[in-house]
Each structure stands twice: as structure tokens, then as C-alpha cells.
């Protein structure tokens, strides 16, 4: 065994219980991103190599280390200063996923209930969980 490496199947805390190390690995987020206003900056992230500004309200996050398949969980949230005026609903969605990137969209719902894509006004969050390659 190389110095500085421990191989184990279970971690046991003195009082808080045990967790198998495969659950530690599988339960950890494999990527996350804090996307800045306008969708052009990435102030902080994990396992993201770059951000693509694809169109109004459409962005791509490219992974540094790819996912093992497209069967993973991706979630997005938008920061918005809610008010009682019109067009005050914001929607975040996952447009598509592949092993090397995830495509996300931000939008608002207008007074007619129509979904209109909109650039990120303040910031947005994305988290990815699943298996790495």
C-alpha cells in the first residue's frame, strides 16, 4: 500500500454510526456550479471545466471528469428577487444531459403562462449526483 492511502469498505464514527465507503463515493456530489449573472462567469464550481453561453437563458456546463453514463441526477435553481409585479416566476430546467456536460435553461413565466427563456439575472446553482466514469 502506498504511503498516504487507506483502503477500507466501512468508516465507523465513535458515536454517529457507520457508512460504507461506496456510499460515501456514490453519495457525494460529482459536480456543482455557482453561475454568475448573465451566465458568463463561473465564480465557483467543482468538477466543471468550462461554461458555455449557448443562447438567451441557455447554458452548458462541461465536466472535468466525465460521468459514467447519462443516468444521473442534475438539479438547478435560480436566484431571483421575488416581487409582486408581473412576470415574477422563475423557472430552471435541465435541457439535456450527456456524460461530458449538462445543458441548463433559465426562464420566466409571463402573464399568459408562456415560458420565456431569460438570461440569469443574479446567479444560479446546479448540482450533479451520480457515478463518475
Amino acid at each position, binding site marked *: 500500500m502506498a504511503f498516504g492511502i487507506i483502503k*477500507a469498505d*466501512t468508516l465507523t*464514527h*465513535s458515536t454517529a454510526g457507520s457508512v460504507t465507503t461506496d456510499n460515501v463515493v456514490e453519495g457525494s456530489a460529482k459536480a456543482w456550479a455557482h453561475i454568475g449573472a448573465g451566465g458568463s462567469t463561473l465564480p465557483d464550481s467543482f468538477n466543471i471545466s468550462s461554461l458555455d453561453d449557448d443562447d438567451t437563458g441557455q447554458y452548458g456546463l462541461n465536466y472535468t471528469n466525465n460521468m459514467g453514463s447519462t443516468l444521473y441526477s442534475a438539479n438547478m*435553481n435560480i*436566484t431571483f428577487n*421575488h416581487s*409582486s409585479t408581473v412576470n415574477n416566476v*422563475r423557472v430552471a430546467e435541465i435541457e439535456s444531459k450527456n456524460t461530458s456536460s449538462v445543458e441548463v435553461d433559465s426562464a420566466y413565466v409571463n402573464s399568459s403562462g408562456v415560458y420565456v427563456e431569460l438570461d440569469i439575472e443574479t446567479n444560479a446553482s446546479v448540482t450533479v449526483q451520480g457515478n463518475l466514469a
Partner: protein
Amino acid sequence: MSSILVDNLTGKTTAGSVTVTSEQGGATMQLQQGLAKCWADYTTAATFVLNDSLNVSSLDDEGAGDCTININNDMNSANYSVTSNVLGGLSGGTKIFQNGSKTSAAYRQISTNSSGTAGDIGSSYATIHGDLA
């Protein structure tokens, strides 16, 4: 023997960095970056209730469906990822998004109906990934 009894994991070279191998063995990732730093399951009603949580000190009732979640051990900056969801329905489907600006010590989210009118909801969820202070 493949169990480790331990209360703390600290990186040998860098205290805040423990590396784990990916599920399929093709990559390594930093354990700390993948761990959720805070999560909350709460109910917004006449009295807001924190049903279960990690690293949450308290909730502030900001109005119908509008809740500030106070982080116990603060994040390093406001550049973190927070993703959310709800259980329960408002008219036309419930939307939830981060309300206003995030800070290292708190985040605020609001649930609305499809017209953007805020309303209380059975259960709201949020999870934070990012860097602790």
C-alpha cells in the same frame, strides 16, 4: 479487516483535501467538495417548522412561503450551489427559487404558484454544496 473506526478524516498533505476514487475507477475526486454542507426539510405554515436538517441553526419567517435558512457553520463565500424542491401543490403548480441574494450565513427561498403569488407549502427542501469557511 476493511473497516476504519475514526471520528475525523483529515488530508495528510492538505488538511482539507481527502481524495477518493470514482465508482468506475476512472477518476479521483476530492471528498470535501462533493459533500453537502447544509440541507433542510421545512414546512411553511402559520408557524414555520424545521423538520430535519444539517448545519442549520434556525429559520426566519419572512412571509407566506418565504423563508430564510440560517447556516450554522458559515460558507466561505456566497458563491455556492443551492438546489431546491417542494412537496405539495399551489395553484397551477408550485415554483420555488432562491429569493434575493445569498450570503455566506444564510439563504432565502420562496414558494409561489404559477402566477408568482407566494404561498405556504407542505414541505420545502434545499441542499447546499460549496466551500465551508
